[in-house]
């Protein structure tokens, strides 16, 4: 059944082209010395325009996106990406403008950024928002650099540790390292929440911040958030909110009201901007007023005459974190989403996302181990332990789901649950889709008992079967070579 697809280089025939460049209307120059020029051209493909389109169309057919089918990838919020956003982001007045044009010529773009800063501040309950970070991880780093600058400005240079729960995303400790902090991991308790007693043990004058995802990666709300916030603040630390799971709380609870000092959002999760096969995303960061002096520059401001401008005059700024003003094209899409949904719509988004997740969780509970029994928020975690005892791993279950046209849930994360499946349906899926997925999971659970081979040997009808990842890493082939 497996089918190989030719590389574009393998389709190449000397002499074919797929471009149309303007003819030269100026004289050829000889001012560029030969010594600076290539001796041999870059070995790029030579194809016709139709060959090119067929190649990429065929590649697209070998790819699964949200528009192809259900994509319950936990913590990634794979919701529908509205088509009108794609249209408006491509308007010439947004796509064909240069970041260094005079401010007078980009007032519409600056207005959009300014209003988005305001909206996201309101949604998160923070005082100011920077739109510069390109992604969640970059937002984390930006936030931590501000936390560092804040402590240093108060002469507290000894605060070099950041606490993260053991259920945290991998980017949290990695961002802490890149920002120059050491990471302390605190264990979760039997309810899957931060163990407050454990937290108390590690809090001290060397702690800069606690990074928390709430609801956490198990999909559970940290009920003791206020106690946690008070403890961290009493110890002189700050609270960082990883907004990867903000889809659960829009209009319902705000990180700013929970005591968080710094927040990042993933616009490509909660605010419908497409994931793009890995990006681009956007990771705006909101802060409470104590941290405003440290925001990256520039910020978008509005003067008394209603004119928008870029403010570079931020003397204590941590500096710049990304080129220009952030991933503007992505920000346009998120802005359009907020304008489409309004306050009640956003709240309904979270209510439906949470209802969908709980419905799936309760219907699947009889067939798979459910390590944490309380209501979940927008996602939940199952364990494949019961199936593992019968010789079928969670990886096999994930691969079997491919045969039914589903993208599997996130697997083997968070690290604290064995044989973990992390399921996030989102609010944009219909009940029929959820039911189909549930029935399929139940069928797979039965197959594990009755006919485990069919699961262990899955997938059966994808364009390739399971791939040899070990050899790929041991003997890396990372590019095509001309024979």
């Amino acid at each position, binding site marked *: 059944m*497996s089918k190989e697809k030719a590389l574009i280089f393998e389709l190449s025939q000397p002499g074919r082209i797929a471009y149309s460049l303007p003819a030269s209307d100026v004289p050829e120059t000889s001012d560029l010395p030969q010594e600076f020029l290539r001796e041999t051209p870059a070995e790029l493909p030579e194809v016709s325009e139709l060959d090119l389109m067929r190649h990429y169309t065929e590649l697209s057919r070998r790819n699964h996106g949200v528009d192809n089918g259900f994509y319950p990838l936990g913590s990634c919020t794979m919701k529908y990406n509205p088509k009108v956003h794609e249209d408006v982001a491509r308007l010439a007045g947004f796509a064909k403008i240069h970041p260094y044009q005079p401010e007078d010529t980009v007032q519409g773009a600056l207005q959009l950024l300014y209003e988005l800063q305001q909206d996201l501040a309101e949604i998160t309950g923070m005082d100011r928002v920077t739109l510069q970070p390109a992604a969640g991880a970059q937002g984390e780093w930006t936030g931590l650099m501000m936390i560092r600058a804040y402590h240093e400005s108060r002469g507290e240079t000894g605060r070099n540790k950041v606490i993260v729960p053991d259920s945290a995303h*991998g980017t949290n400790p990695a961002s802490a390292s890149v920002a120059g902090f050491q990471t302390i991991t605190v264990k979760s308790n039997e309810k899957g929440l931060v163990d407050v007693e454990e937290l108390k043990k590690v809090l001290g004058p060397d702690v800069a911040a606690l990074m928390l995802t709430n609801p956490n990666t198990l999909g559970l709300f940290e009920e003791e958030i206020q106690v946690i916030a008070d403890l961290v603040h009493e110890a002189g630390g700050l609270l960082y909110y990883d907004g990867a799971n903000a889809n659960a709380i829009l209009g319902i609870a705000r990180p700013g009201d929970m005591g968080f000092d710094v927040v990042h959002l993933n616009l490509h999760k909660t605010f*419908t901007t497409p*994931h793009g096969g890995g*990006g681009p995303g956007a990771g705006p960061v909101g802060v409470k007023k104590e941290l405003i002096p440290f925001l990256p520059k520039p910020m978008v401001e509005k003067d008394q005459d209603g004119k928008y401008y870029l403010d570079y005059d931020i003397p204590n700024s941590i500096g710049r974190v990304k080129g220009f003003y952030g991933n503007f094209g992505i920000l346009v899409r998120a802005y359009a989403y907020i304008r489409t949904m*309004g306050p009640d719509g956003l709240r309904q*988004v979270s209510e439906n996302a949470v209802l969908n997740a709980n419905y799936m969780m309760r219907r699947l509970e009889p067939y798979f181990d459910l390590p944490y029994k309380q209501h979940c928020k927008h996602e939940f975690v199952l364990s494949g332990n019961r199936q593992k005892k019968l010789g079928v791993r969670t990886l096999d279950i994930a691969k079997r789901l491919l045969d039914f046209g589903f993208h599997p849930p996130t697997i083997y994360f968070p690290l604290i649950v064995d044989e973990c499946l992390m399921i996030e349906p989102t609010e944009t899926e219909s009940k029929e889709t959820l039911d189909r997925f549930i029935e399929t999971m139940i069928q797979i659970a039965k197959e594990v008992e009755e006919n485990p081979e069919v699961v262990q040997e899955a997938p059966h009808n994808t364009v390739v*079967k399971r791939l040899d990842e070990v050899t790929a890493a041991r003997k890396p082939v990372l*590019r095509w070579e001309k024979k």
Partner: protein
Amino acid sequence: MKFRYLPMTHKDHHEMLQAIGINSVEDLFSDIPKSVRFQGRLNIPEPMDEYSLVRHMSRLAGKNASYDQYVSFLGAGVYEHYIPSVVNHVISRSEFYTAYTPYQPEISQGELQAIFEFQTMICELTGMDVANSSMYDGPTALAEAASMAVAVSKKKKIVVSRAVHPEAREILLTNAKGLGYEIVEVPFVDGVTDLEKLKEVADEETAAVIVQYPNFFGHIENLAEIEKIAHQHKGLFIVSANPLALGLLKPPGQYGADIVVGDAQPLGIPASFGGPHCGYFATTKTYMRRIPGRIVGQTVDEEGVRGFVLTLQAREQHIRRDKATSNICSNQALNALAASVYMSALGKQGMQEVARLNVNKAHYAKKRLVEVNGVEDVFHQPFFNEFVVKLSRPVKEVNAKLLEQGIIGGYDLGRDYPELKDHMLIAVTEVRTKEEIEQLAKGLEGLL
């Protein structure tokens, strides 16, 4: 109110509550303490229907001066180029743009193969062995290159030319504060890195020497000499390169670069007010296992059929957590796809041709513009598609007047370099016609 993105009906709602065994969706939020529940209604504008939204967005867009209405000579890291129509058609296929990172290779072969092809194309252009699947943008890719150099060399000093993009140097400074390395800037002389000064500061402590190619002023740096200086004390040699220029210019890999980074924006990606663009990162086999970000590798499936997977993941944050040297997780895959389609469309011939057109147009423009009274030729170095002139009036004033004539003028270098007050950086790409260059010359004649 009903929303087209929310399919839940009253019936669904009711059935789901029943299945869960609760009376109200409110019960699902009972674990959120009352004191932190948001009691009000978000103070954001009321919802818009689709038509009103499009009108609203069009009006905002209409307040901006776009390339469609103006003739632009603005570059400085972001360029207006010809984008083949196929680029947008391919990246608009929702199988690509509505997917995420290809964690499940069996149903992500399209994306994985496209990235593998992208990696190959970047290697071809840069002359390097290995490239990753993309970074956020050129400037952050440069900061990642510095981080990697510090990590592999275990030295703490980065030497960077002042002829590197000012924003890239700013990000480098922010990054250096976090990782605790030192940055030493090297001045330029006649618009290129001062090699004598570079020799003085590059020493045993130096983790890497960083230059840009062509540099911020458009000039072609002497990579052969800089390589010797960088490697003399066993530091790494990092080059930030415009990939479009590499269609014609000798690739940094051939000069012995250890890391080549840059932004693929010139390769089919719209300016979009500065983002999203697409950083790229390439290095040698030696450092293959130290590269940040996602990498795709070729392998075979159980039946021996060729396929592609994310590989060398032991480097990455989700495995190494606090031991990872980079925290990057998402990247700019869709824009990397756009760049791949561009490179496929232009191909072996087109990439040379477009680069050559840029050189010819920019050289013609410079010759024409320095004939204008009040426009002074200041640097005398080989250049690609950008050059610097000194004007007899402040750049800001001149640009305001040019705008009235439908021209977006060049970049005001005085913003970043006090010594280059009244100096304008002018970009002339293949899309500028001789007539438009004449228009700029005439415009300047009337102003200076």
